Structures are given as structure tokens and as C-alpha cells.
């Protein structure tokens, strides 16, 4: 057989998948904008916090002009009631949306992997206790709990030294999203570890006198990256959507900051009068989520072991 490492095979397969590459490029652009947009933005005259009283009408606070007040000054229009620039909000909002989704994903994956590995490798009581905890967490109506605990937990986070207001609220979002997300991942990892630990290379490692730590982290962990990568890619868009749903229900960042979810949630009020409020962030969000999902699918195909061997 022509020899290539799995990494090379996966990369080669992805390279050939034009749609996946396109999505990858799109995502890179999104992240670049998320990282650099708020840095470069001000020099382009963008400021999401600046009110433009002149852009909104005295009659109801709506934007003056068509399509949500699209003008040279505000290429995507202005916010109802305040006249803040939509384009700027999108740039800054993207950053928070990505920070929330990415951090929550990383946290979920970290916790899920650690717990999953422990449960999978430990067997016996530890496995059982972790299993029951996972069952318990999975049984909770998480939307309800997130809503109910939003304030008290945000306060607790503030007490821990996180700046009050949006930093604490973002931290709450990240923590709360991940704390209901990890069991799914932990289950997957546990299953993988259980099957991996029976593989003979683990026995071989024991036979040569490897420590438990070496077995867990050098032998088993590298074998998890494929499922983890796929799961992560699919988790990210799910979390972008979760953030939007939570914003819709009123848990999330508050002005002056915004996120895609918050913008969408607010836009619904004005949808009939100013459709662009819905469609502009909606389209941008949809492209982000669809790109993630398509890339995740492509990765899954590329990493499919049955196709590899």
C-alpha cells in the first residue's frame, strides 16, 4: 500500500472536497473578522457604541430611511431606538458570538475528554458514579435551569472576580452551555476509551512497563483526536445556535454589547417593518453555522476509518 499518515490522508481528502475547503476559507475569514474587526474597525469609523440620534425618527424611534436606515454613513443601517451602526454591531457581535461558542466548545471538550477518559479507563465504581452524574445532568431541562439560575450565577461569577456586567454574563453563558454539553462528549469518549483500552497496543504498553499516565495520554489520547475533531466542528455551530436561543429567551449579553443571537432576537420585533434587521444577521449567522456543519460533515467523511483502511 502506498503509505501516508492518517493526517496526510485526511488533509488530502479535505483538499479534494471543494465545498469543505470553501467552508474552511469562510470560517477563517469569520475568525479573522472576529479577531481583527474590532481592532481595525474604529479606524474605519466604525463604533458600535456611538448613538446617532440623527438617524432615528422622533416618531417611534425607528430608523430614518429605507432598509433600516441604510446610508453611506451606515452601510447596513442603524439600530431601532438608538441609531447605533448595524455593521459595527455585527463586527463586534461576531467576536462575542465566536468567543462564547469557541470557549464553550473548548471547555466542553476538555471536561468531556477528562471525565470520559477517567470513566472509560477506571471501570468499576468511578465509572458508575460518573455514569450516574451524566444521566442526571442529561435529564435536566437545561433551558429552564439556565434561565432560572441566570442571575444568581452571574452574581456568583462576579463575586469570583470576573468584571460585572457582560464579562460575567459571557462567562455564565460559557460555563452553563458547557456544563450541560459535556456529558454527551464524555459518553462518546468513554465509549472510545473502553474500546481502545482493549486494543492490544495498550496491552503492549503495559507489557513494556508504561505508567498509567503514559497509557492514558500517550497511547489513548492521540487516538481520540479524530472523533474529537469531528465532534468539535459540529459542536461549534450547535453552540452558536444555543447562544442565539438563549439570547432569544433573554439570557445573554446586554447592550451596549451584542451578539448574533441578540441581534436576531431583537430583530424579530421589527421584522415586518425593517426586514433587514432579520435578514442581514440571519444570513451571516446561517453562513457561519452551515459552514461549520458542512466542514464537520466533510471531516467526518475524511476521518471515516472504514474508508481509511
Amino acid at each position, binding site marked *: 500500500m502506498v503509505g501516508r499518515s492518517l493526517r496526510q490522508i485526511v488533509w488530502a481528502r479535505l483538499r479534494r472536497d471543494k465545498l469543505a475547503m470553501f467552508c474552511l476559507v469562510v470560517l477563517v475569514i469569520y475568525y479573522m473578522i472576529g479577531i481583527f474587526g474590532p481592532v481595525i474597525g474604529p479606524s474605519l469609523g466604525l463604533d458600535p457604541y456611538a448613538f446617532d440620534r440623527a438617524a432615528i425618527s422622533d416618531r417611534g424611534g425607528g430608523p430614518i430611511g429605507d432598509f433600516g436606515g441604510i446610508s453611506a454613513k451606515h452601510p447596513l443601517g442603524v439600530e431601532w431606538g438608538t441609531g447605533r451602526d448595524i455593521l459595527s454591531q455585527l463586527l463586534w457581535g461576531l467576536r462575542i458570538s465566536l468567543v462564547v461558542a469557541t470557549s464553550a466548545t473548548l471547555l466542553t471538550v476538555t471536561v468531556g475528554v477528562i471525565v470520559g477518559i477517567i470513566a472509560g479507563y477506571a471501570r468499576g465504581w468511578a465509572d458508575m458514579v460518573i455514569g*450516574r452524574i451524566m*444521566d*442526571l445532568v*442529561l*435529564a*435536566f*431541562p437545561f*433551558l*429552564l*435551569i439556565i*434561565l*432560572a*439560575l441566570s*442571575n*444568581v450565577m452571574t*452574581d456568583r461569577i462576579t463575586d469570583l472576580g470576573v468584571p460585572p456586567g457582560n464579562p460575567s454574563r459571557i462567562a455564565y453563558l460559557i460555563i452553563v452551555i458547557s456544563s450541560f454539553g459535556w456529558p454527551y462528549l464524555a459518553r462518546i469518549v468513554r465509549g472510545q476509551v473502553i474500546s481502545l483500552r482493549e486494543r492490544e497496543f495498550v496491552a503492549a504498553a503495559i507489557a513494556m512497563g508504561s505508567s498509567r499516565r503514559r497509557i492514558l495520554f500517550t497511547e489513548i489520547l492521540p487516538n481520540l483526536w479524530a472523533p474529537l475533531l469531528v465532534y468539535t466542528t459540529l459542536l461549534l*455551530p450547535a453552540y452558536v*445556535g444555543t447562544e*442565539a*436561543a438563549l439570547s*432569544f*429567551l433573554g439570557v445573554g449579553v446586554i447592550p451596549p454589547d451584542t451578539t448574533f*443571537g441578540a441581534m*436576531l*432576537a431583537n430583530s*424579530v420585533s421589527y*421584522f*415586518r417593518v425593517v426586514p433587514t434587521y432579520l435578514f442581514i444577521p*440571519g444570513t451571516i*449567522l*446561517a453562513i457561519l*453555522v*452551515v459552514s461549520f*456543519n*458542512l466542514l464537520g460533515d466533510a471531516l467526518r467523511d475524511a476521518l471515516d476509518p*472504514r474508508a481509511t483502511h
Partner: protein
Amino acid sequence: MAGYVVRRVLGMVLLLFLLTLTVFFLFNMMPADPARLTCGKACSPAVIEANRHHLELDIPPIEQYQRFVSGIFFGRTFSKDTPRPIECEAPCLGYSFLRNTEVLTLIARAAPVTFWLAIGGFLTWMVVGLTLGIVSALKRGRWIDRTIMGIALIGYSLPSFFIGLVLIFFVILDWNLLPFPQWTTPDKDLGRFVQTMLLPWITIATLYAAFYMRLTRNQVLEIFGEDYIRTARAKGLPERIVVVKHALRAGLTPIVTAAGLDLAGLLGGAIITENIFSLPGLGSLAIGSVLASDLPLITGITLLTAALIIFANLIVDLLYAVIDPRVRVG
């Protein structure tokens, strides 16, 4: 098999116990003071204190919890030492002092709405999801597969509240195809019931069907690689039987798992959908209870929802045994 069921049920009881404990103490952290909430404009610390006593909030949490649990089995009496004690018969999930109603009564009132919503949505998405998933798997790589999967991807990617709102705005407001949703039971006014539930069903089905299409497709394709499918074909079975009887049945386990849990989750209230369509179900009740900091009600609904999911887990596990004879061994 019987032993298996008994063990699973015992496991469920333990889990439920842990659940009541967690829920109870989780919500003890809530900032809103229920005693303050019951106190009107002319409120003095003494009144708050007294109400706290009547609400039994002045006893240690452990004892509150004991009373709560014993209320579930034996019933309990609130405001015992007032002229107007409130009898709450077993199973007593608590009493909403904000709504002056037993939590169980409130839940029982909301439950039928959610039941119909969930069942209708469930059937719709299962039928659509499984059918299209199979079609997609059979036509793998062709345009019809791409189209179905494309639709699934979009349905999967849209924020959940978005679909319902767009449906309301177009179907009801713009095109006037349906009247405004107004909940009624099917026995009272079947036409109105269907008109009201149609869009909620579609909304829920759109969200879930996408997932089930993908799941079904993946399962069927995966099972197609199994040796026994080759055997079935080697026997000369018609493709239809190979797909439905051999492939789908074998791939049913994760679908049943997901369906059981999703249905249970929905039966506990579809918070967003119910709110969008003004359906007086458990989801709306839940949101209302959270906004009003109605602790007994939040606790009751959380417990009920979680118990449903735990119960669904049990049912799903038992269903495995029906589907897969290998599981039946004790």
C-alpha cells in the same frame, strides 16, 4: 428479562432521588425571596418573616427537602397554623403561592397542550425524517440525496425560534392561510385544534426531522456495510425488504434512543415553540414560573421534566431489548 427490568427500575428510582435532591438544592440558591414575593405593598419585615414561616422557608433546607419528598408520597399541608391551611394531597409537588394553586394542578392543566404538541410534532418528524433519510441513503450521492441533505442541513442550522416566527408571519399574517393560534382541545373543536397546532407541529418537525434524516441516512448506510445485509441480498430478498426489515431495524437503536429522549424532552415542554405560538403548555408554564420566580412551580416542572427523561431512558433501554434480542440476556 424480569430481573433486568427490576434492576433498571431500581436504578431509575435512585436517579429520581438524586434528582429531587439536586433540583431542590439548586433552586435554593435563587436570589428571589419567595416570602418577599408574597408580600404586598405595605410590607414590613415582620410580614415577610411570617410569610417565610408559612411557606416553611424558615426551617433548615434539609427539613424542607424532607417535607417536600414526603409531600410527594403522603401529601402535606401548607400554612398549617393559619386560619386558612392549604391541603395538598399526595402526590404533592408543592403549592404555588403566587398562583394560589397546587403545582400539580397547574401542571395537569398545561400537560394536555404539551402532550398534543409533542405527539403531533413527533409523528410528523419521525415519518418525514425516516422516509427522507432512507430515500437519501438509497440514492446516495445523487441529486435527490443532495437536495434532501441540503434541506436537512438548513433545518438543522437555523435557530429554533426563527422557523416558528417566520411561519407565523407568512402563513398567518401575510397570507392569512390560518387563523391565529387559539388553544382548544381536539374534542371541543377539532378544526380549530388542527388549525392551531399545524404550524407548531411543522415548526417542531422542521427542527427535529433534519436531525433524524441525517441520523437515519447514516444508520442505513452504515448497516449497509454489515455482513448480514450481504447475506440478505445473497438470499435473493427484494431490496425493499433488505432496506426496511434488515437494514433499518438493525440501525434503529440510536434512532429509538434519540426519539425517546427527544419525545420525553418535548413532553416536558417545548419552551420556545409554545411561547411563540402562545400555547398554554408546560413550556409556557415553565417560562412563566421562572420569570415570576415561582420556586415551587419551577421545582415541580423541573422535576417532572427530568423524571420524564429518566423514564424515557428506561423505556428506551427496554425497547432495546425488544429491538435487539442480544440485550435480553439478564
